[in-house]
């Protein structure tokens, strides 16, 4: 550009400026981001798009779709993050989503993020994408690991053979990202269709035959032919309309006659043979993979060991809970005090300004009190997500799924269900959402149905109050018994539902185990924030609305004392009281508290305080007069089981449908009430007999 002799330089400069002014509007394009799980794809995505991300759903399914954006020069690039996949078969929903998107939306380019220390397996996806006709940019990520092994990759060779630009990056350090962005902008839209894996002559003959016999509009013909030979279920379905079926079967039969095993495996094998050759030619020192395996292996021999695996896992879990509860408690108390102070400040502020009483009440009692009781849990939840983010990033989470797989299997569940269950102890909402990683719909729904029995952190204050009032010497034990009961019930309910609704095998667990890695602080914090903010948003909006609703019901009819027996909500409580009598707590206050608990469990204790007209400190003594030890325990059991909060119900509906949501609500109500009654009645009988 600047190699012009002096005279014309100023002219060019002027011309250039004029052009720029015309082109001021952004050129918008869209690209897709693909790659294996654990390739660092997410890090690349985060590096490129910064905070400008939007999370949604792929249409029609509950798989998460992430979209982001970045600008470079005069270009505005939208980046669509495809799910982590290994290939483009029809076997998993993630892969189907990816290929549907690529075929329909035709992004300008597909950046494939590759773990460069694992070239062969990672490149498999690249070959699949190239056969699909995608405009690929190869991102060799984790180059730091490659270099530290003393391996040299001939990127020019890779680029030449595959016909794609190759960029080296170290995403977690941010290296190479600018070059990547540049490559994205510079990529020519006219792709060279030159890439072709040479399957053996016999196979190539049949590919040609099928190309001539079958056409599928919108799909590249060679790709379709290969998929048909592979036996791709989805493509076969689409082609069923034409009369090509016989041709397909004939081609398949012709080939299988010559092969030792099925046609699909032969095709896969051919691809890997090609890749093996390519990798050998492009890497100077064949990565001594035994080195790479060594450290992770040695760790695994201990952690996933026959005898130590489970104890170590339990120790990890205990550590997590310690972190969450012991560390979180002082922070939670801090927020609690702040909320109380804030509520009073607002209240007196409004009174001082001679504002209406109802406004003061709405703001102070209703909103601040209500929403405040949710925010109190934020530290606990954030710590839980932090712990989980660390476990995931370090690679231990995958091992955990395996250690628990056997146990889960006995319950009729999947090893991958353990993460949603674990999350459920913090809050059922992210727990339910985490079931998206389960591939089988049956397993997913079953895990969702049972998740609320994992006693969420919102129920804890209820236990602390009642156990503290009646079982002060054995407080910890009693609370633990409740958690345990939740788990036991989950097992029982899971088995029953499995037998009734989900007969059949649990999907087998096949999961890649990433090498152990030291988590980066940045990555972990981003993950933690992603999940926490989701929880905040969901819970916050619904709880906010719920709390205002409660406030209304408690303040009407006009003239009635706030949250008294005469108010609407008090009357509602009276309505339910007789139902609760057999469980030992037939007072209208208990009824109201439980009713409020439907909106959010965090609210129950505060509600009791309001209804009995005492601050939480005095609540213990009041409770001791209103309940007995037995009815207290029954109440706690009811609180454990009876119904998920509205936000959780909404999440269940979002992830499943009305039928399953109805079942979840129904069974938990019946089970909760039934158990509470049972415990109280049997206990009372026992005591009467003494």
């Amino acid at each position: 550009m600047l190699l012009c002799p002096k005279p014309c330089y100023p002219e060019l400069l002027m011309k250039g400026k004029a052009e720029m002014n015309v082109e001021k509007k952004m050129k918008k394009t869209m690209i897709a981001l693909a790659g294996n799980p654990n390739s660092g794809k997410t890090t690349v995505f985060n590096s490129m798009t910064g905070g400008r991300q939007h999370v949604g759903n792929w249409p029609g399914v509950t798989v998460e779709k992430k979209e982001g954006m970045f600008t470079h020069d005069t270009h505005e690039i939208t980046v669509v993050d495809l799910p982590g996949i290994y290939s483009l078969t029809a076997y998993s929903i993630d892969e189907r989503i990816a290929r549907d998107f690529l075929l329909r939306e035709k992004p300008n380019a597909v950046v494939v993020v590759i773990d460069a220390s694992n070239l062969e397996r990672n490149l498999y996806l690249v070959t699949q994408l190239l056969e699909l006709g995608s405009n690929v940019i190869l991102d060799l990520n984790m180059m730091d690991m490659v270099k530290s092994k003393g391996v040299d990759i001939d990127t020019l060779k890779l680029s030449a053979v595959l016909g794609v630009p190759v960029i080296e990056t170290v995403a977690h350090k941010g290296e190479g990202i600018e070059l990547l962005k540049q490559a994205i902008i510079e990529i020519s839209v006219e792709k060279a269709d030159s890439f072709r894996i040479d399957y053996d002559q016999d196979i190539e003959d049949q590919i040609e035959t099928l190309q001539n016999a079958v056409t599928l509009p919108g799909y590249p013909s060679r790709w379709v032919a290969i998929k048909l030979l592979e036996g791709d279920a989805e493509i076969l379905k689409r082609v069923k309309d034409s009369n090509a079926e016989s041709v397909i079967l004939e081609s398949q039969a012709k080939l299988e006659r010559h092969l030792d095993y099925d046609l699909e495996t032969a095709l896969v094998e051919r691809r890997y043979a090609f890749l093996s050759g390519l990798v050998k030619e492009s890497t100077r020192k064949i990565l001594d993979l035994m080195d790479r395996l060594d450290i992770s292996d040695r760790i695994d021999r201990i952690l996933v060991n026959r005898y130590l695996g489970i104890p170590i896992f339990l120790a990890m879990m205990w550590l997590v809970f310690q972190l969450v509860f012991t560390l979180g408690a002082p922070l939670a108390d801090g927020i609690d005090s702040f909320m109380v102070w804030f509520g009073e400040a607002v209240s007196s502020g409004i009174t001082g300004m001679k504002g209406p009483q109802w406004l003061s009440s709405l703001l102070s009692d209703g909103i601040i009190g209500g929403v405040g009781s949710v925010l109190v849990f934020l530290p606990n939840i954030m710590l839980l997500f932090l712990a989980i983010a660390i476990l995931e990033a370090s690679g231990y989470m995958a091992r955990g799924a395996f250690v628990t797989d056997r146990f889960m299997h006995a319950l009729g569940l999947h090893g991958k269900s353990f993460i949603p269950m674990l999350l459920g102890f913090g809050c059922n909402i992210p727990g339910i959402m985490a079931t998206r990683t389960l591939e089988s719909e049956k397993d997913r729904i079953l895990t969702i149905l049972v998740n609320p029995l994992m006693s969420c952190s919102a129920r804890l204050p209820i236990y602390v109050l009642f156990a503290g009032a009646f079982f002060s010497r054995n407080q910890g034990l009693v609370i633990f018994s409740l958690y345990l009961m939740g788990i036991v019930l989950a097992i029982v309910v899971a088995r029953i539902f499995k037998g009734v609704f989900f007969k059949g095998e649990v999907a087998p667990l096949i999961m890649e185990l990433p090498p152990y890695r030291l988590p980066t602080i940045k990555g972990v914090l981003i993950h933690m924030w992603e999940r926490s903010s989701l929880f905040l948003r969901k819970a916050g909006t619904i709880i906010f609305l719920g709390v205002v609703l409660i406030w209304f019901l408690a303040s009407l009819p006009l003239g009635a004392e706030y949250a008294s027996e005469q108010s609407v909500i008090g009357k509602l409580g009276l309505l339910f009281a007789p139902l609760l009598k057999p469980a030992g707590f037939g007072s209208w206050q208990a009824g109201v508290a439980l009713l409020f608990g439907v909106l959010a469990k965090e609210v129950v204790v505060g509600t009791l305080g309001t209804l009995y007209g005492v601050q939480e400190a005095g609540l213990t003594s009041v409770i001791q007069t209103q309940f007995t030890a037995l009815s207290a325990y029954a109440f706690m059991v009811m609180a454990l089981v009876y119904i998920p909060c509205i936000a959780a119900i909404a999440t269940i509906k979002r992830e499943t449908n009305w039928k399953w949501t109805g079942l979840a609500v129904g069974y938990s109500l019946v089970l909760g009430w039934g158990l509470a009654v049972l415990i109280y009645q049997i206990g009372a009988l026992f005591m009467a007999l003494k």
Partner: protein
Amino acid sequence: MPLSMVRPGQRVRIAEIRGGRGLIGKFTHMGFYPGVEIEVISNRPGPLIVSRGGVKLGLGYGMANRILVSLIP
């Protein structure tokens, strides 16, 4: 012999994978198909870890019995 009976540290060659198409499809495309050499990293009733060229795969309950292998001396 089924993979479940192989001791950790052994190298074996995959002979046959028994199962429905969906079951083995993912496995195949990840590079684990008949003829391929793999190493057993850890094994016990249930979770089984194998590796092929630096890729470590965990196999859940029940999978190990469906994969038939031959020992490599």
